[in-house]
């Protein structure tokens, strides 16, 4: 009984994971391999603005589909990587990029994490060095006796 329940659950989750791939991505054909590589690279780097934690390669949202089409059309007309990125940024802002450019507004974003890591390492080392060494305490005969009693 328990076993069949597990099987049922297992098949349920397998079915769930299948549905992730059900909405298959449309296929575009390119003239050159470079264009195709560029397309694949770009759709991994552009964020879907409807479902903000997915790139447009992964997303099934209508907008992601449209942006893939736009990317495809631009590349097959000979646009470079920068052309496509500039086109998207002009319309959706830096937010559309998973790798935002380094500028005043994004300084904290880029510098913050390594800065915090260094700072916490610094304080950790400082703390460990300053920690007083645990002094060894001499026990007299009475105390030893009570310790022995406790350990019995």
């Amino acid at each position: 009984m328990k076993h069949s329940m597990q099987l049922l659950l297992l098949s349920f989750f397998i079915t769930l994971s299948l549905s992730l791939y059900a909405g298959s991505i449309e296929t575009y054909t390119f003239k050159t391999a470079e264009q195709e590589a560029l397309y694949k690279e770009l759709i991994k780097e552009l964020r879907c603005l409807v479902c903000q934690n997915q790139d447009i390669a992964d997303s099934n949202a209508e907008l992601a589909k449209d942006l893939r089409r736009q990317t495809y059309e631009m590349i097959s007309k000979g646009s470079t990587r920068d052309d496509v990125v500039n086109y998207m940024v002009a319309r959706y802002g830096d937010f559309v990029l998973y790798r935002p450019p380094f500028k005043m507004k994004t300084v904290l974003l880029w510098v913050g994490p390594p800065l915090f890591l260094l700072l916490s390492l610094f304080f950790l080392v400082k703390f460990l060095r300053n920690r007083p060494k645990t002094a060894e305490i001499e026990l007299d005969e009475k105390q030893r006796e009570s310790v022995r009693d406790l350990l019995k």
Partner: protein
Amino acid sequence: MKKTHLIPLFVFILLSLLLYRGLSLNSRNIPSPFIGKPAPAFDLPRLYQKDQRISVESMKSQVWVMNVFASWCVSCRAEHIVLSNFIRNHKVPTIGLNYKDYGTEEYGNDVISWLAQLGNPYTAIAVDTEGRTGIDYGVYGVPESFVIDKKGIIRYKFTGPITQKAVTEILVPLILKLRQEPA
């Protein structure tokens, strides 16, 4: 007690404040790169007059609003009455951009019944079947509304369903101010 012991407390308070602020931010409100830029040109067929076209150019020298909507969009239904009252009460010329509506190959059966049921507040409706004009305006979540000044510059963008609060606090004062500006 040494003063340095208080440092973690301060760091904790600071971090809490930062995260608390983050809770009240709306992650869908992405800053629009269009504010202060000319409204991207479009030239689209009109919903009720298929042979006529509507463009940004035709709205020149007036303060107008472009509202992106679709019959499949639930929040559009929610904002419809607020938007309609705003348009009517303040006589705001408004273009409805009918964005990727179903069946718009035949110029909109769904949207026509939607408007018949809820009322049509728009001055004109532009049909954007493939969503290309939508891309030009950086549309990512319908409904969206753009306020465009007499010179054709986008001055404000509202993402999501317009609320009565937004109308009285933001849109009306802005429209009145923009109307004072020279064409």
